[in-house]
Protein backbone atom coordinates (compact mmCIF):
# COMPACT_ATOMS: atom_id res chain seq x y z
CA UNK A 1 0.00 0.00 0.00
CA UNK A 2 2.68 2.39 1.02
CA UNK A 3 4.98 3.26 -1.84
CA UNK A 4 8.28 4.71 -0.84
CA UNK A 5 10.07 3.63 -3.99
CA UNK A 6 11.03 7.18 -4.80
CA UNK A 7 12.36 7.85 -1.41
CA UNK A 8 9.49 10.05 -0.36
CA UNK A 9 5.96 9.32 0.69
CA UNK A 10 2.95 9.60 -1.57
CA UNK A 11 1.75 12.48 0.60
CA UNK A 12 4.96 14.41 -0.03
CA UNK A 13 4.95 13.72 -3.73
CA UNK A 14 1.37 14.98 -4.08
CA UNK A 15 2.37 18.19 -2.32
CA UNK A 16 5.52 18.65 -4.38
CA UNK A 17 3.70 18.17 -7.66
CA UNK A 18 1.16 20.91 -6.87
CA UNK A 19 1.88 24.64 -6.87
CA UNK A 20 0.89 25.79 -3.38
CA UNK A 21 0.43 22.15 -2.36
CA UNK A 22 2.05 22.65 1.09
CA UNK A 23 -1.28 23.95 2.29
CA UNK A 24 -2.54 20.37 2.24
CA UNK A 25 -0.93 19.88 5.63
CA UNK A 26 -3.39 22.40 7.02
CA UNK A 27 -6.52 20.45 6.08
CA UNK A 28 -9.00 20.57 8.94
CA UNK A 29 -11.16 17.76 7.61
CA UNK A 30 -14.07 20.17 7.84
CA UNK A 31 -15.79 18.83 4.74
CA UNK A 32 -16.57 22.20 3.19
CA UNK A 33 -15.00 21.03 -0.07
CA UNK A 34 -17.14 17.91 -0.43
CA UNK A 35 -20.25 19.77 0.71
CA UNK A 36 -19.70 22.36 -2.02
CA UNK A 37 -18.91 19.89 -4.75
CA UNK A 38 -21.50 19.47 -7.50
CA UNK A 39 -20.13 16.01 -8.24
CA UNK A 40 -19.79 15.03 -4.58
CA UNK A 41 -22.64 12.50 -4.59
CA UNK A 42 -21.09 10.62 -7.52
CA UNK A 43 -17.59 10.48 -6.10
CA UNK A 44 -16.13 7.36 -4.46
CA UNK A 45 -14.61 9.65 -1.85
CA UNK A 46 -15.16 13.35 -1.35
CA UNK A 47 -12.11 15.60 -1.54
CA UNK A 48 -12.00 15.73 2.28
CA UNK A 49 -11.91 11.97 2.58
CA UNK A 50 -9.39 11.73 -0.23
CA UNK A 51 -7.09 14.14 1.57
CA UNK A 52 -7.23 12.00 4.71
CA UNK A 53 -6.34 9.00 2.56
CA UNK A 54 -3.43 10.91 1.04
CA UNK A 55 -2.17 11.84 4.49
CA UNK A 56 -2.30 8.13 5.29
CA UNK A 57 -0.26 7.40 2.15
CA UNK A 58 -2.97 5.16 0.70
CA UNK A 59 -1.60 5.60 -2.78
CA UNK A 60 -3.33 2.75 -4.59
CA UNK A 61 -6.71 3.52 -3.08
CA UNK A 62 -6.42 7.23 -3.82
CA UNK A 63 -5.29 6.82 -7.41
CA UNK A 64 -7.99 4.24 -7.99
CA UNK A 65 -10.78 6.60 -6.88
CA UNK A 66 -13.06 8.18 -9.46
CA UNK A 67 -12.90 11.47 -7.53
CA UNK A 68 -10.43 13.42 -9.69
CA UNK A 69 -12.21 12.30 -12.84
CA UNK A 70 -15.56 13.49 -11.57
CA UNK A 71 -14.11 16.87 -10.70
CA UNK A 72 -15.56 19.36 -13.17
CA UNK A 73 -13.04 22.02 -12.21
CA UNK A 74 -15.60 24.46 -10.84
CA UNK A 75 -13.31 25.79 -8.08
CA UNK A 76 -16.11 25.98 -5.48
CA UNK A 77 -14.01 23.96 -3.04
CA UNK A 78 -10.97 26.14 -3.68
CA UNK A 79 -12.70 29.43 -2.91
CA UNK A 80 -14.58 28.02 0.07
CA UNK A 81 -11.81 26.06 1.79
CA UNK A 82 -11.05 27.87 5.05
CA UNK A 83 -7.41 26.81 4.78
CA UNK A 84 -6.93 28.02 1.21
CA UNK A 85 -5.97 24.58 0.01
CA UNK A 86 -5.81 24.46 -3.79
CA UNK A 87 -8.26 21.55 -3.95
CA UNK A 88 -8.91 21.76 -7.70
CA UNK A 89 -5.20 21.82 -8.53
CA UNK A 90 -4.71 18.79 -6.29
CA UNK A 91 -7.33 16.98 -8.36
CA UNK A 92 -5.26 17.70 -11.47
CA UNK A 93 -2.15 16.40 -9.73
CA UNK A 94 -3.93 13.18 -8.83
CA UNK A 95 -5.10 12.74 -12.41
CA UNK A 96 -1.59 13.16 -13.70
CA UNK A 97 -0.17 10.75 -11.11
CA UNK A 98 -2.84 8.18 -11.88
CA UNK A 99 -2.13 8.39 -15.60
CA UNK A 100 1.61 8.28 -15.10
CA UNK A 101 1.30 5.15 -13.01
CA UNK A 102 -1.39 3.57 -15.17
CA UNK A 103 -3.65 3.12 -12.16
CA UNK A 104 -6.63 5.22 -12.99
CA UNK A 105 -10.31 4.58 -12.43
CA UNK A 106 -12.29 2.96 -15.22
CA UNK A 107 -14.36 6.10 -15.76
CA UNK A 108 -11.26 8.20 -16.35
CA UNK A 109 -11.45 9.96 -19.69
CA UNK A 110 -7.81 9.33 -20.38
CA UNK A 111 -8.36 8.49 -24.03
CA UNK A 112 -10.33 11.67 -24.49
CA UNK A 113 -7.69 13.75 -22.71
CA UNK A 114 -4.75 12.22 -24.48
CA UNK A 115 -6.42 12.40 -27.86
CA UNK A 116 -7.17 16.03 -27.17
CA UNK A 117 -3.55 16.63 -26.25
CA UNK A 118 -2.35 14.77 -29.35
CA UNK A 119 -4.50 16.98 -31.54
CA UNK A 120 -3.21 20.12 -29.91
CA UNK A 121 0.37 18.94 -30.21
CA UNK A 122 -0.19 18.20 -33.87
CA UNK A 123 -2.16 21.29 -34.88
CA UNK A 124 -1.77 23.82 -32.11
CA UNK A 125 -5.55 24.04 -32.01
CA UNK A 126 -8.33 21.82 -30.78
CA UNK A 127 -11.60 21.38 -32.54
CA UNK A 128 -15.06 20.20 -31.60
CA UNK A 129 -14.23 20.75 -28.01
CA UNK A 130 -16.42 18.59 -25.83
CA UNK A 131 -19.14 17.41 -28.15
CA UNK A 132 -18.36 14.85 -30.83
CA UNK A 133 -14.87 14.30 -29.56
CA UNK A 134 -15.55 11.10 -27.76
CA UNK A 135 -17.22 9.44 -30.69
CA UNK A 136 -15.01 10.92 -33.35
CA UNK A 137 -11.80 10.23 -31.54
CA UNK A 138 -12.83 6.70 -30.76
CA UNK A 139 -12.35 6.41 -34.52
CA UNK A 140 -15.83 5.33 -35.36
CA UNK A 141 -16.70 6.24 -38.91
CA UNK A 142 -17.80 9.81 -38.64
CA UNK A 143 -21.10 9.30 -40.42
CA UNK A 144 -22.32 6.60 -38.08
CA UNK A 145 -21.10 8.48 -35.06
CA UNK A 146 -23.13 11.47 -36.15
CA UNK A 147 -26.22 9.40 -36.73
CA UNK A 148 -25.79 7.65 -33.41
CA UNK A 149 -25.78 10.85 -31.49
CA UNK A 150 -28.77 13.13 -31.69
CA UNK A 151 -26.83 16.10 -30.46
CA UNK A 152 -24.14 15.59 -33.07
CA UNK A 153 -26.73 15.70 -35.78
CA UNK A 154 -28.39 18.82 -34.45
CA UNK A 155 -24.99 20.49 -34.26
CA UNK A 156 -24.31 19.53 -37.85
CA UNK A 157 -27.61 21.04 -38.91
CA UNK A 158 -26.79 24.24 -37.13
CA UNK A 159 -23.41 24.48 -38.81
CA UNK A 160 -21.55 24.02 -35.54
CA UNK A 161 -19.32 21.12 -36.49
CA UNK A 162 -16.22 21.50 -38.56
CA UNK A 163 -14.62 18.32 -39.70
CA UNK A 164 -11.13 19.61 -40.32
CA UNK A 165 -9.03 21.07 -37.56
CA UNK A 166 -7.56 24.52 -37.80
CA UNK A 167 -3.84 24.66 -37.29
CA UNK A 168 -1.36 27.32 -36.36
CA UNK A 169 1.38 28.49 -38.67
CA UNK A 170 4.43 28.25 -36.49
CA UNK A 171 4.10 24.64 -35.40
CA UNK A 172 7.89 24.16 -35.21
CA UNK A 173 8.02 26.88 -32.56
CA UNK A 174 5.23 25.34 -30.49
CA UNK A 175 6.75 21.89 -30.81
CA UNK A 176 10.13 23.19 -29.65
CA UNK A 177 8.50 24.81 -26.62
CA UNK A 178 6.51 21.73 -25.67
CA UNK A 179 9.47 19.39 -26.18
CA UNK A 180 11.62 21.57 -23.96
CA UNK A 181 8.86 21.68 -21.32
CA UNK A 182 8.61 17.90 -21.37
CA UNK A 183 12.36 17.63 -21.11
CA UNK A 184 12.47 19.91 -18.06
CA UNK A 185 9.58 18.06 -16.46
CA UNK A 186 11.21 14.68 -16.98
CA UNK A 187 14.43 15.86 -15.36
CA UNK A 188 12.56 16.89 -12.25
CA UNK A 189 10.83 13.57 -11.73
Amino acid at each position, binding site marked *: MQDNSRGSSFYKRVIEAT*PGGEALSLCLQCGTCGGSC*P*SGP*DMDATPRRLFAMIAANMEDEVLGCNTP*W*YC*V*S*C*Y*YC*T*VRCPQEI*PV*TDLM*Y*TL*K*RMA*IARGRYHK*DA*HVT*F*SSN*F*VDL*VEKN*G*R*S*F*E*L*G*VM*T*RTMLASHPIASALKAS*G*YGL*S*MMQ*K*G*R*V*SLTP*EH*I*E*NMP*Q*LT*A*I*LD*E*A*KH*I*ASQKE
Partner: protein
Amino acid sequence: MSPANDHYAYYPGCSIRSTSKAYEQSTMKVVESLGMTFQEVEDWNCCGATEYFSINSLPAYSLVARNLSLAAEQGASDLVAPCSACFLNLHKTDKYMGKYKDLNEDVNQALAAGNLGYEPGSLQIRHLLDVIVEDIGFDTIAEKTEKPLWGLRVAPYYGCLIVRPDSKYNPEYPTHLDELLRVLGATVVDFPLKTHCCGGHMTQISDETAYELIRRLLHNADEYQADAIATICPMCQMNLDVFQPQVNRMFKTDFDIPILYFTQLMGLAFGISEKELGFGSEVVSANAALKKIADEAPEKAKKARRDKKALPMPESLP
Protein backbone atom coordinates in the same frame (compact mmCIF):
# COMPACT_ATOMS: atom_id res chain seq x y z
CA MET B 1 -13.25 55.85 -19.12
CA SER B 2 -12.95 55.66 -22.83
CA PRO B 3 -11.08 52.76 -24.28
CA ALA B 4 -7.79 53.49 -25.96
CA ASN B 5 -8.20 51.97 -29.32
CA ASP B 6 -5.34 49.60 -29.62
CA HIS B 7 -4.55 48.18 -26.25
CA TYR B 8 -6.68 45.06 -26.47
CA ALA B 9 -5.12 41.87 -27.69
CA TYR B 10 -7.86 39.38 -28.47
CA TYR B 11 -7.62 35.66 -27.83
CA PRO B 12 -10.56 33.95 -29.57
CA GLY B 13 -9.98 30.36 -28.44
CA CYS B 14 -10.86 27.22 -30.35
CA SER B 15 -14.57 26.84 -29.50
CA ILE B 16 -15.53 30.22 -30.81
CA ARG B 17 -14.05 29.26 -34.17
CA SER B 18 -15.96 25.98 -34.42
CA THR B 19 -18.95 25.25 -32.22
CA SER B 20 -19.72 28.79 -31.15
CA LYS B 21 -19.38 31.06 -34.12
CA ALA B 22 -22.45 33.04 -33.08
CA TYR B 23 -20.53 34.22 -30.03
CA GLU B 24 -17.70 35.65 -32.08
CA GLN B 25 -20.05 37.12 -34.68
CA SER B 26 -22.05 38.96 -32.05
CA THR B 27 -18.93 39.93 -30.11
CA MET B 28 -17.39 41.56 -33.15
CA LYS B 29 -20.58 43.47 -33.94
CA VAL B 30 -20.92 44.75 -30.39
CA VAL B 31 -17.26 45.61 -30.04
CA GLU B 32 -17.36 47.51 -33.31
CA SER B 33 -20.43 49.49 -32.38
CA LEU B 34 -18.82 50.39 -29.05
CA GLY B 35 -15.80 51.74 -30.91
CA MET B 36 -13.31 49.25 -29.52
CA THR B 37 -10.59 47.57 -31.52
CA PHE B 38 -9.54 44.04 -30.75
CA GLN B 39 -6.28 42.92 -32.24
CA GLU B 40 -6.20 39.16 -32.58
CA VAL B 41 -3.15 37.47 -31.07
CA GLU B 42 -1.22 36.42 -34.13
CA ASP B 43 -0.87 32.66 -34.52
CA TRP B 44 -2.39 31.94 -31.10
CA ASN B 45 -2.67 28.32 -30.03
CA CYS B 46 -5.16 26.30 -27.98
CA CYS B 47 -5.28 27.08 -24.25
CA GLY B 48 -5.25 23.38 -23.42
CA ALA B 49 -8.72 23.41 -21.86
CA THR B 50 -8.77 21.18 -18.77
CA GLU B 51 -7.43 18.22 -20.71
CA TYR B 52 -3.84 19.25 -21.12
CA PHE B 53 -3.48 20.05 -17.44
CA SER B 54 -4.67 16.53 -16.63
CA ILE B 55 -1.85 14.97 -18.60
CA ASN B 56 1.24 17.05 -18.19
CA SER B 57 1.54 20.19 -16.17
CA LEU B 58 4.63 22.07 -17.36
CA PRO B 59 3.88 21.64 -21.08
CA ALA B 60 0.33 22.83 -20.32
CA TYR B 61 1.55 26.02 -18.67
CA SER B 62 4.05 26.52 -21.50
CA LEU B 63 1.32 26.02 -24.09
CA VAL B 64 -0.70 28.79 -22.48
CA ALA B 65 2.35 30.99 -21.96
CA ARG B 66 3.14 30.99 -25.67
CA ASN B 67 -0.09 32.94 -26.11
CA LEU B 68 0.82 35.35 -23.33
CA SER B 69 4.20 35.92 -24.89
CA LEU B 70 2.76 36.55 -28.35
CA ALA B 71 0.14 38.93 -26.97
CA ALA B 72 2.70 40.91 -24.99
CA GLU B 73 4.93 41.12 -28.05
CA GLN B 74 2.09 42.83 -29.89
CA GLY B 75 2.36 45.66 -27.40
CA ALA B 76 -1.03 45.08 -25.81
CA SER B 77 -1.72 45.98 -22.22
CA ASP B 78 -4.86 43.86 -21.92
CA LEU B 79 -5.56 40.40 -23.21
CA VAL B 80 -9.26 39.71 -23.73
CA ALA B 81 -10.81 36.25 -23.91
CA PRO B 82 -14.51 35.67 -24.56
CA CYS B 83 -14.36 32.04 -23.37
CA SER B 84 -14.36 31.47 -19.62
CA ALA B 85 -12.15 28.39 -19.84
CA CYS B 86 -9.57 30.19 -21.97
CA PHE B 87 -9.76 33.16 -19.62
CA LEU B 88 -9.09 30.93 -16.64
CA ASN B 89 -6.07 29.24 -18.20
CA LEU B 90 -4.52 32.49 -19.39
CA HIS B 91 -5.19 34.26 -16.10
CA LYS B 92 -4.06 31.38 -13.95
CA THR B 93 -0.85 30.83 -15.88
CA ASP B 94 0.06 34.51 -15.61
CA LYS B 95 -0.74 34.49 -11.92
CA TYR B 96 1.07 31.26 -11.09
CA MET B 97 4.14 32.35 -13.03
CA GLY B 98 4.18 35.47 -10.89
CA LYS B 99 3.63 33.54 -7.67
CA TYR B 100 5.80 30.45 -8.13
CA LYS B 101 9.37 31.25 -9.08
CA ASP B 102 10.31 27.73 -10.16
CA LEU B 103 7.35 27.51 -12.47
CA ASN B 104 8.21 30.88 -13.98
CA GLU B 105 11.79 29.79 -14.63
CA ASP B 106 10.76 26.50 -16.15
CA VAL B 107 8.09 28.02 -18.37
CA ASN B 108 10.45 30.70 -19.58
CA GLN B 109 13.13 28.12 -20.28
CA ALA B 110 10.60 26.21 -22.40
CA LEU B 111 9.49 29.40 -24.17
CA ALA B 112 13.12 30.25 -24.90
CA ALA B 113 13.32 27.11 -27.02
CA GLY B 114 10.91 28.93 -29.34
CA ASN B 115 12.66 32.29 -28.95
CA LEU B 116 9.87 33.61 -26.77
CA GLY B 117 9.62 34.72 -23.19
CA TYR B 118 7.03 36.18 -20.86
CA GLU B 119 7.32 38.40 -17.83
CA PRO B 120 4.37 37.58 -15.57
CA GLY B 121 2.14 40.55 -14.91
CA SER B 122 2.93 42.31 -18.18
CA LEU B 123 -0.63 41.76 -19.37
CA GLN B 124 -3.98 42.25 -17.70
CA ILE B 125 -5.87 39.08 -18.51
CA ARG B 126 -9.57 39.82 -18.76
CA HIS B 127 -12.81 38.23 -19.76
CA LEU B 128 -14.87 39.99 -22.40
CA LEU B 129 -17.71 40.70 -19.96
CA ASP B 130 -15.34 42.47 -17.58
CA VAL B 131 -13.95 44.64 -20.38
CA ILE B 132 -17.40 45.67 -21.54
CA VAL B 133 -18.70 46.40 -18.06
CA GLU B 134 -15.61 48.12 -16.69
CA ASP B 135 -14.08 49.93 -19.67
CA ILE B 136 -17.22 50.84 -21.58
CA GLY B 137 -19.54 51.19 -18.64
CA PHE B 138 -23.28 51.09 -18.21
CA ASP B 139 -23.89 54.70 -19.20
CA THR B 140 -22.50 54.24 -22.68
CA ILE B 141 -24.33 50.95 -23.03
CA ALA B 142 -27.58 52.64 -22.02
CA GLU B 143 -26.99 55.35 -24.62
CA LYS B 144 -26.38 52.73 -27.29
CA THR B 145 -29.56 50.86 -26.44
CA GLU B 146 -32.05 51.66 -29.19
CA LYS B 147 -34.33 48.69 -28.83
CA PRO B 148 -34.57 47.80 -25.17
CA LEU B 149 -35.27 44.16 -24.40
CA TRP B 150 -38.49 45.11 -22.60
CA GLY B 151 -40.51 42.22 -21.31
CA LEU B 152 -37.83 39.61 -21.90
CA ARG B 153 -37.15 37.62 -18.75
CA VAL B 154 -33.50 36.65 -18.66
CA ALA B 155 -31.57 34.47 -16.22
CA PRO B 156 -28.00 35.75 -15.91
CA TYR B 157 -25.66 32.76 -16.02
CA TYR B 158 -22.05 33.32 -15.04
CA GLY B 159 -20.81 29.76 -14.64
CA CYS B 160 -17.68 29.08 -12.66
CA LEU B 161 -14.53 30.32 -14.17
CA ILE B 162 -14.86 34.07 -14.45
CA VAL B 163 -15.58 34.39 -10.76
CA ARG B 164 -13.52 31.52 -9.36
CA PRO B 165 -10.93 30.82 -8.14
CA ASP B 166 -9.64 34.34 -8.25
CA SER B 167 -11.46 37.42 -9.38
CA LYS B 168 -12.53 40.85 -8.26
CA TYR B 169 -16.16 39.78 -8.51
CA ASN B 170 -18.05 37.90 -5.83
CA PRO B 171 -17.16 34.23 -6.38
CA GLU B 172 -20.65 33.00 -5.56
CA TYR B 173 -23.08 35.79 -6.31
CA PRO B 174 -21.72 38.29 -8.83
CA THR B 175 -24.10 40.88 -10.23
CA HIS B 176 -22.35 42.65 -13.12
CA LEU B 177 -24.09 40.59 -15.80
CA ASP B 178 -27.42 41.19 -14.02
CA GLU B 179 -26.75 44.90 -14.13
CA LEU B 180 -25.74 44.85 -17.78
CA LEU B 181 -28.88 42.98 -18.82
CA ARG B 182 -31.01 45.37 -16.80
CA VAL B 183 -29.43 48.31 -18.60
CA LEU B 184 -30.40 46.63 -21.87
CA GLY B 185 -34.01 46.75 -20.67
CA ALA B 186 -34.43 43.06 -19.88
CA THR B 187 -36.22 41.80 -16.81
CA VAL B 188 -33.49 40.02 -14.89
CA VAL B 189 -34.87 37.15 -12.86
CA ASP B 190 -33.35 35.83 -9.67
CA PHE B 191 -31.10 32.96 -10.53
CA PRO B 192 -29.69 31.39 -7.37
CA LEU B 193 -27.62 28.87 -9.35
CA LYS B 194 -26.02 31.61 -11.44
CA THR B 195 -22.46 30.50 -10.67
CA HIS B 196 -23.05 26.77 -10.57
CA CYS B 197 -21.23 24.49 -12.95
CA CYS B 198 -22.48 23.62 -16.44
CA GLY B 199 -20.63 20.32 -16.22
CA GLY B 200 -17.64 21.30 -18.31
CA HIS B 201 -16.42 18.19 -20.06
CA MET B 202 -18.37 15.86 -17.79
CA THR B 203 -20.49 14.87 -20.79
CA GLN B 204 -17.39 12.98 -21.90
CA ILE B 205 -17.30 10.91 -18.73
CA SER B 206 -20.74 10.35 -17.34
CA ASP B 207 -24.04 11.30 -18.95
CA GLU B 208 -25.90 10.95 -15.65
CA THR B 209 -23.64 13.28 -13.73
CA ALA B 210 -23.40 15.80 -16.56
CA TYR B 211 -27.09 15.91 -17.40
CA GLU B 212 -28.03 16.28 -13.76
CA LEU B 213 -25.85 19.39 -13.48
CA ILE B 214 -27.47 20.81 -16.61
CA ARG B 215 -30.93 19.85 -15.41
CA ARG B 216 -30.50 21.76 -12.16
CA LEU B 217 -29.61 24.93 -14.02
CA LEU B 218 -32.48 24.67 -16.48
CA HIS B 219 -34.87 23.86 -13.67
CA ASN B 220 -33.75 26.85 -11.66
CA ALA B 221 -34.16 29.23 -14.61
CA ASP B 222 -37.54 27.67 -15.33
CA GLU B 223 -38.67 28.16 -11.73
CA TYR B 224 -38.16 31.87 -12.18
CA GLN B 225 -39.91 31.78 -15.55
CA ALA B 226 -36.94 32.88 -17.54
CA ASP B 227 -37.56 33.22 -21.28
CA ALA B 228 -33.86 32.81 -21.94
CA ILE B 229 -30.57 32.22 -20.18
CA ALA B 230 -27.77 34.66 -20.95
CA THR B 231 -24.33 33.07 -21.05
CA ILE B 232 -20.77 34.30 -21.36
CA CYS B 233 -18.98 31.10 -22.33
CA PRO B 234 -19.03 28.74 -25.31
CA MET B 235 -18.81 25.67 -23.12
CA CYS B 236 -21.72 26.73 -20.92
CA GLN B 237 -23.75 27.56 -24.03
CA MET B 238 -23.04 24.20 -25.54
CA ASN B 239 -23.85 22.18 -22.46
CA LEU B 240 -27.12 23.93 -21.73
CA ASP B 241 -28.26 24.28 -25.35
CA VAL B 242 -27.02 21.27 -27.28
CA PHE B 243 -27.70 18.81 -24.47
CA GLN B 244 -31.09 20.25 -23.49
CA PRO B 245 -32.99 17.68 -25.60
CA GLN B 246 -30.91 14.90 -24.01
CA VAL B 247 -31.68 16.23 -20.55
CA ASN B 248 -35.39 16.36 -21.39
CA ARG B 249 -35.25 12.76 -22.53
CA MET B 250 -33.39 11.53 -19.46
CA PHE B 251 -35.52 13.36 -16.89
CA LYS B 252 -38.81 13.43 -18.81
CA THR B 253 -38.84 17.21 -18.61
CA ASP B 254 -39.90 19.66 -21.27
CA PHE B 255 -37.45 22.54 -20.90
CA ASP B 256 -37.47 24.85 -23.88
CA ILE B 257 -35.10 27.62 -22.80
CA PRO B 258 -32.86 29.24 -25.40
CA ILE B 259 -29.27 29.84 -24.26
CA LEU B 260 -28.04 33.13 -25.69
CA TYR B 261 -24.71 34.87 -25.58
CA PHE B 262 -24.82 38.15 -23.68
CA THR B 263 -23.31 39.77 -26.77
CA GLN B 264 -26.28 38.59 -28.84
CA LEU B 265 -28.60 40.30 -26.38
CA MET B 266 -26.48 43.45 -26.40
CA GLY B 267 -26.51 43.46 -30.19
CA LEU B 268 -30.28 43.11 -30.30
CA ALA B 269 -30.68 46.03 -27.94
CA PHE B 270 -28.27 48.06 -30.05
CA GLY B 271 -30.56 47.48 -33.05
CA ILE B 272 -28.29 45.02 -34.88
CA SER B 273 -30.12 42.39 -36.94
CA GLU B 274 -30.63 38.87 -35.62
CA LYS B 275 -28.82 37.43 -38.61
CA GLU B 276 -25.70 39.49 -38.03
CA LEU B 277 -25.68 38.31 -34.43
CA GLY B 278 -25.68 34.64 -35.32
CA PHE B 279 -29.20 33.88 -34.14
CA GLY B 280 -30.50 30.62 -35.57
CA SER B 281 -27.47 28.52 -34.68
CA GLU B 282 -28.86 27.69 -31.24
CA VAL B 283 -30.33 24.18 -30.95
CA VAL B 284 -33.17 25.38 -28.71
CA SER B 285 -34.65 28.13 -30.85
CA ALA B 286 -34.75 31.67 -29.57
CA ASN B 287 -37.70 32.65 -31.78
CA ALA B 288 -40.44 32.34 -29.18
CA ALA B 289 -38.41 34.26 -26.63
CA LEU B 290 -37.55 37.06 -29.01
CA LYS B 291 -41.25 37.54 -29.80
CA LYS B 292 -41.76 38.47 -26.15
CA ILE B 293 -39.70 41.61 -26.52
CA ALA B 294 -42.27 44.37 -26.23
CA ASP B 295 -42.47 47.93 -27.56
CA GLU B 296 -43.20 49.29 -24.14
CA ALA B 297 -41.51 48.96 -20.83
CA PRO B 298 -43.30 46.47 -18.60
CA GLU B 299 -45.60 48.01 -15.99
CA LYS B 300 -43.57 46.89 -13.08
CA ALA B 301 -40.39 48.64 -14.06
CA LYS B 302 -42.21 51.96 -14.21
CA LYS B 303 -43.66 51.66 -10.72
CA ALA B 304 -41.77 53.51 -8.06
CA ARG B 305 -41.36 51.96 -4.67
CA ARG B 306 -44.18 53.07 -2.43
CA ASP B 307 -42.02 53.83 0.52
CA LYS B 308 -38.59 55.08 -0.42
CA LYS B 309 -37.18 54.00 2.91
CA ALA B 310 -38.40 50.43 2.66
CA LEU B 311 -35.93 47.73 1.74
CA PRO B 312 -36.54 46.42 -1.77
CA MET B 313 -37.84 42.87 -2.03
CA PRO B 314 -35.78 40.65 -4.34
CA GLU B 315 -38.59 40.58 -6.89
CA SER B 316 -38.84 44.34 -7.07
CA LEU B 317 -35.17 45.13 -7.59
CA PRO B 318 -35.14 47.79 -10.27
